[in-house]
């Protein structure tokens, strides 16, 4: 059993590393005359060595580490489903590993949300103590942030980007595998936090609370620093892949919009993620080494952490939503069967958001008592970012206008992204303007706003993308009827839950509380019930996915008749993606343009991809190179 061997090896080496770390530190401490066991220091060392052991045991030693010692490397080969459980360097396998892992984390985080809403059905305490509630709330926060940061980027991005640009893999396949294999220990560590008392700081982990709180914080710190590392390495990989691995003829002006979005996202992840690492590192040093970064009595400053933290964590929301925009625009163009409206403006908007994302962080700190001269510039920068975001709407709305809308499940999700983000964007204006933000900051208005942007903008795009790529990934077609049921169920549940949630926020219900004022009982009960309704919709999704993966009908090569390269190869694609490397000729979205071709597969002959039915109006004669761009070709 390859899978069992791999997972057992990873776990075993991880545990050995964990105990070696603790034991080694204990020996050094004992020699230096201290107690051998210091909870936080021991856990930190154990964790670091445990993670190294885990990735080495999972296969990094054989595939990579040996090379550093001048030894011959070997890959772990595993057949069938077992390839998902080994240190596999194939980007398609890694993408699916990411997706499945994060769907599991998403469902766990959703379960936490259900528990929170159960507590908040009525004022007073229902199910949990304050400590339990804070712990559940913190776990929900950080797990969902992790899903939002990594599921779309790591899952769909890994799977689709090399296919979309006509490459055979990512630039650094082993690095890619490493970024995935660092994730399971992070998830396990976060799930262990309740054993040490639970994280009570929320996902933002503001000091001095995060310095003074219980030992679980240390697990949070080390886990999230590791998570940041994967984000940086993944971003690096995407940037190099997109710069160097494009197929011949795939110029920057012909790049699919999702690839552009991933390019901007990867730069953001690469540049800013260190901020989260630095802020958590300072917290960690304050806790473990007794330093005073945030202790005002000794010259530290708690606001320093907020600056460093938001320096990453605001750009992080663009790590979440930019790929969502990208994949939504991609699907909207294919399912409207129209060229992407104002493609150049969309690219400009993505790069504009990339440029502005680093200068808006302090709008999270308008009420924090930072110096007065900072409010104005950050207000201006924040309002400016609505201009490139508006261009994304122009592209989406311009593309569906006069289109031939084929309302498949992914298309419905893509339209929902635009709808939800319009609401999230408008409520964002209230939070960017200082006079309104003073009241709304840290209220349920903020909770509703960021669920509209992150969940409405990105998680909807994620689910749309999963349906969109399901035939390509599995070679089977999902059940369209169940998909539509899932969409409408989720869409209605989501909008009822979070639209009503604005109201308690305006009324003065603060975030992150286990108990609230009794005059908001009705609103909270409705929100809770709608939340349960929303939560139940994912059961349909899980059932549909599992059932269709096993029993679904075989999928065609190009069920959507899309023109981009990913659909011009088999479903699922062979290991090298394209048996014949493509040569790109035209724009990927030239629907309705007679004679246009996106790509040719030279010399493919009989193996050329199936063409759309010849009844397509405006169909051009088949290009001499054979096969090619799907939709418009034919």
């Amino acid at each position, binding site marked *: 059993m390859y899978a069992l061997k791999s997972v057992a090896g990873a776990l075993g080496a991880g545990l050995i590393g964990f105990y070696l770390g603790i034991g080694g530190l204990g020996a050094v401490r004992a020699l230096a005359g201290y107690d051998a066991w210091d909870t936080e220091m021991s856990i930190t060392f154990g964790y670091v060595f445990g993670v190294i052991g885990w990735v080495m045991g999972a296969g990094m030693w054989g595939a990579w580490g040996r090379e*550093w*010692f*001048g030894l011959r490397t070997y890959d772990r080969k595993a057949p069938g489903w077992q390839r998902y459980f080994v240190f596999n360097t194939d980007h398609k396998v890694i993408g699916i590993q990411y997706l499945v892992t994060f769907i599991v984390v998403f469902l766990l985080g959703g379960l936490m949300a259900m528990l929170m809403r159960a507590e908040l059905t009525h004022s007073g305490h229902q199910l949990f103590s304050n400590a339990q509630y804070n712990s559940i709330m913190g776990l929900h926060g950080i797990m969902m942030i992790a899903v939002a940061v990594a599921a779309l980027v790591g899952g769909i991005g890994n799977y689709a980007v090399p296919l979309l640009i006509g490459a*055979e893999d990512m*630039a*650094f396949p082993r690095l890619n595998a490493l970024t995935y294999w660092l994730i399971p220990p992070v998830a396990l560590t976060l799930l262990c936090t309740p054993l040490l008392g639970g994280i009570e700081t929320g996902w933002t982990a503001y000091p001095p609370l995060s310095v003074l709180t219980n030992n679980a914080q240390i697990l949070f710190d080390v886990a999230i620093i590791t998570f940041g590392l994967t984000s*940086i390495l993944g*971003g*690096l*990989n995407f*940037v*190099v892949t997109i*710069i*160097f*691995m494009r*197929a*011949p003829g795939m110029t920057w002006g012909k790049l699919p919009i999702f690839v552009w979005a991933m390019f901007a996202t990867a730069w953001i992840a*690469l*540049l*800013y*993620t*260190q*901020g989260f*690492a*630095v802020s958590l*590192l*300072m917290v960690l*040093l*304050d806790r473990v*080494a*007794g*330093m*005073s*970064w945030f*202790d005002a009595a*000794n*010259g*530290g*400053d708690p606001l*320093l952490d907020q*600056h*460093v933290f938001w*320096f990453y964590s605001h750009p992080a929301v663009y790590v979440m939503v930019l790929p969502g925009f990208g994949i939504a625009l991609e699907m909207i163009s294919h399912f409207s069967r129209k060229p992407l409206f104002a493609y150049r403006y969309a690219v400009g908007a993505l790069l504009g958001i990339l440029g502005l994302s680093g200068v808006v962080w302090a709008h999270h700190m308008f009420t924090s008592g930072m110096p007065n001269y900072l409010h104005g510039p950050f207000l201006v920068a924040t309002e400016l970012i609505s201009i490139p975001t508006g261009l994304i709407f122009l592209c989406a709305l311009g593309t569906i206008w006069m289109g031939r809308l084929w309302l498949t499940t992914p298309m419905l999700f893509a339209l929902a992204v635009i709808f939800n983000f319009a609401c999230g964007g408008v409520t964002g204006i209230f939070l960017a303007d200082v006079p309104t933000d003073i009241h709304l900051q840290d209220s349920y208005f903020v909770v509703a706003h960021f669920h509209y942007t992150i969940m409405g903008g990105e998680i909807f795009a994620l689910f749309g993308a999963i349906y969109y790529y399901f035939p390509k990934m599995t070679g089977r077609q999902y059940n369209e009827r169940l998909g539509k049921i899932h969409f409408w169920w989720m869409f209605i549940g989501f909008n009822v839950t979070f639209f009503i949630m604005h109201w308690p926020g305006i009324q003065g219900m603060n975030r992150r509380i286990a108990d609230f004022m009794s005059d908001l009982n009705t609103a909270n009960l409705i929100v809770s019930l709608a939340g349960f309704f929303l939560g139940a919709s994912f059961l349909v999704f899980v059932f549909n996915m599992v059932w269709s993966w096993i029993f679904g009908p075989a999928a065609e090569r190009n069920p959507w008749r899309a023109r981009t390269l990913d659909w011009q190869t088999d479903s699922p694609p062979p290991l090298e993606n394209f048996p014949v*490397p493509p*040569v790109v000729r035209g724009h990927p979205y030239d629907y309705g343009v007679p004679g246009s071709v996106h790509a*040719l597969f*030279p*010399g*493919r*002959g009989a193996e050329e991809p199936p063409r759309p039915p010849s009844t397509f109006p405006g169909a051009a004669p088949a*290009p*001499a*190179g*054979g096969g090619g761009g799907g939709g418009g070709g034919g």
Partner: protein
Amino acid sequence: MALAGTAAHAPEHVVHDKAKMKLVGLWLFFFSESVLFGLLLSARFYLERINREEVDQLLGLGITCVLLLSSVTAFTAETAIEHDRRKLAGWMLVVTILLGTGFACGVGFEWGTAHFSKEQAFGSIFFTMTGIHAAHVISGIGLLVLTWFQLARGRFSGKDHWPVSGTVMYWHFVDVVWVFFYPALYLVK
């Protein structure tokens, strides 16, 4: 066959410039790391404006010179292997490792003798910044040792020496970081 007509320019398999990709990847990694060090540097000036405690100036100047010198020897090692002079490269790597170890020991000595506490803000700044930097120095020494080990077993040549170049670049990067950290921690008042 007609299908072959437009196929003339397409290579059967696209060859990617792997060396360039590794180089750019490494630079992107430096880019990301410099944000880490830049944030620490910003945090240092955020908390303490310009002030600092008394530190041992001569020790600071000494370890700075040692690190800069190790950069020169690392450069010589890389240049030597580029011109197929393996023996010189090996010796230069050894000198670099020794100088790097000297720097690390200097920092350790500084930690042992510093009269300010890590529990004061400047102490936190000083120990964190030198500590993070020293961690990079130590990992750099580890990489240099691995590289030297392989060089000694006859692995690299003028055509194939990416691990040497990459490690030496990493070493230079650590040096660049110290170029900024040294004045920020020792020289400003």
